[in-house]
């Protein structure tokens, strides 16, 4: 019990209190811990939490394959993907660079031509980079294998002294030269990027289909939501500028009529209000040569701006303060040891 519940609880309380009140304790050791080490420890432990996630996923997928559960064949792909990332991350950098020094000044152009053919750059840009032929020049290409680098470096030997250098561990993650990069970078660009980007882009279709099928004006609240959404959608993009304000005015009058209809018994009065209102906006439009920006308040970009800065801000601020109060309350309960749900079951 002590080890499983009391000690974790003690850690939470001590760490929470030190984080919150550490600045008020006039002790250099405590100050230093609060400013530096405590956050570093957090970062380190958080990294281990990520490793745990990775290992856990591997365990689940391997179990799925072992037990031949439904769709187990696909799990092989997940496992292969995982090990590919681990391999290019920890064991095989696939990142070798070639640098050349002491290029014979007379042969600089020939060397540059040869390098240009290899890296796909223009000869002139290479020549401008090699301002001093005797100095070190690094090729704008990363070779995935040492052998590949060696092949070209041997050809280049004719012009100067070459050296093959692997990119340092750690820096290899995002290393690029020109159009090429390390194997880890290759994985990021050609596997991780299309997958994660398309997963998110896919939602565009579902948002559209949901707007068609699910957003119904059932009551006043839903109407507000939809109208605000539509005005924002059109007002935020350049096309909003060209939707005439007088037309929006006419729509507004019609909407007003629909809202007032239940309260006014005589239909003719409602109809009259709508007709006169629409006429006013049409006259405004006509007298201003159908200028889309007049009357100003019904111009979509202007309406959008007001909705964004006033009622949306008010609503968003209420939400922010509400959530803030909730988080501050929960944090307080955690720090004083009342909230223990993170400890789980007994």
């Amino acid at each position, binding site marked *: 019990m002590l080890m499983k519940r009391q000690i*974790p609880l003690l850690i939470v309380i001590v760490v929470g209190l030190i984080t919150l009140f550490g600045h008020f304790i006039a002790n250099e050791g405590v100050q230093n811990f609060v400013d530096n080490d405590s956050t570093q420890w957090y970062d380190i432990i958080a*990294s281990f939490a990520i490793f745990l996630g990775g290992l*856990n996923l591997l365990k689940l997928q391997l179990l799925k394959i072992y037990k031949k559960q439904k769709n187990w064949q696909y799990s092989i792909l997940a496992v292969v993907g995982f090990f590919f990332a681990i391999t290019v991350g920890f064991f095989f950098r696939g990142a070798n660079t070639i640098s050349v020094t002491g290029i014979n000044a007379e042969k600089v152009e020939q060397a540059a031509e040869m390098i240009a053919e290899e890296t796909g750059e223009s000869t002139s840009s290479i020549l401008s980079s090699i301002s001093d032929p005797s100095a070190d020049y690094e090729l704008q290409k990363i070779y995935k294998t040492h052998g590949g680098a060696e092949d070209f470096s041997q050809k280049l030997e004719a012009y100067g002294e070459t050296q093959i250098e692997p990119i340092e561990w750690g820096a290899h993650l995002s290393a690029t030269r020109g159009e090429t990069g390390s194997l880890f970078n290759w994985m990021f660009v050609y596997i991780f990027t299309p997958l994660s980007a398309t997963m998110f882009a896919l939602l565009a279709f579902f948002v559209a289909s949901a707007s068609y099928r699910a957003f119904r004006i059932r009551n006043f609240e839903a109407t507000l939501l939809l109208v605000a959404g539509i005005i924002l959608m059109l007002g935020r993009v350049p096309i909003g500028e060209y939707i005439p304000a007088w037309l929006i005015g006419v729509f507004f009058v019609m909407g007003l009529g629909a809202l007032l209809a239940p309260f006014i018994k005589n239909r003719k009065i409602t109809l009259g209000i709508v007709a006169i209102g629409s006429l006013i906006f049409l006259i405004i439009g006509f007298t201003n040569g159908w200028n889309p920006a007049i009357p100003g308040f019904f111009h979509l970009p202007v309406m959008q701006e007001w909705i964004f800065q006033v009622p949306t801000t*008010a609503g968003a601020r209420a939400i922010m303060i*509400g959530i803030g109060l909730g988080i501050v309350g929960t*944090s307080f309960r955690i720090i004083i040891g009342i909230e223990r749900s993170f400890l789980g079951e007994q």
Partner: protein
Amino acid sequence: MFTIEVFGTWFAVFLTLAIFSYLYDDNPFYKAAEYIFVGVSAGYWTVTFFWTQVQPNLFGRLWPSLETVNADSIFIKIWYGIYNIFGIFLTGIFPKGGIVGHPEIRFIYIIPLILGIFMLLRLVPSVGWLARWALAYIVGMAAGLRFYGFLNSDIMNQIKATVVDFSGSWVSILNGVIIIIGTLTGLLYFFFSREQTGVLGKLSKVGIYFLMISFGASFGFAVMGRISLLIGRFNDLIEFSSSSHNYATFWLLAIMIIVLGAWAFQKKSESGEEVTN
């Protein structure tokens, strides 16, 4: 010339189309891409988190470069002896002569190392509870940080900002008043949502209207964001359909449509047979 980059381009187009094929229906292409995504991302995260924090800031503090450390004592020699054993297997992670970066050995960093290992023990059922110690550190610190952060930025500063500047124009005063009404009534709705009668009920109803406009704006922005992402993806596909990429998009699209068509036809005839049986 066929290089790994050219292969990469084709593979990227294939993966993109495989995910998009979900729009037709759930199918083997989509599933394959989904599982690759899961596996690769888990590995990707593990690798990046290791190289950006654990190696430089944990191992780097436990075994800093010997150039800056006085290694005369026998204890330090043993300590680096352990390091060298690791180094035999993983020269990249434990380079010869210590990790350059931090100036001195910080033995206190054995504590986060142990807590980190405890975290991994979650995978061993009998000692999985040790992970709570590590989790407790995370939870405690997050609570401490958030208490101050949210109190200051999300509550105090927001309340301070919700004032009307009476020296401004009548429009700005009116807008300021609307913001105050909206914020207060919105909060009323949150905290007295049960009492929907009387004055409080009416006021919280006004609060709902403001919240609805806010949600409407969020909805508009959500649509905007998704469309932008779709534009980005289509842009890439258009780029890869050019002659410089050997019309990769067109080729792969055609192949996938044929395969998916055959797959759908087969599935249909299979389910048809089941019905007749």
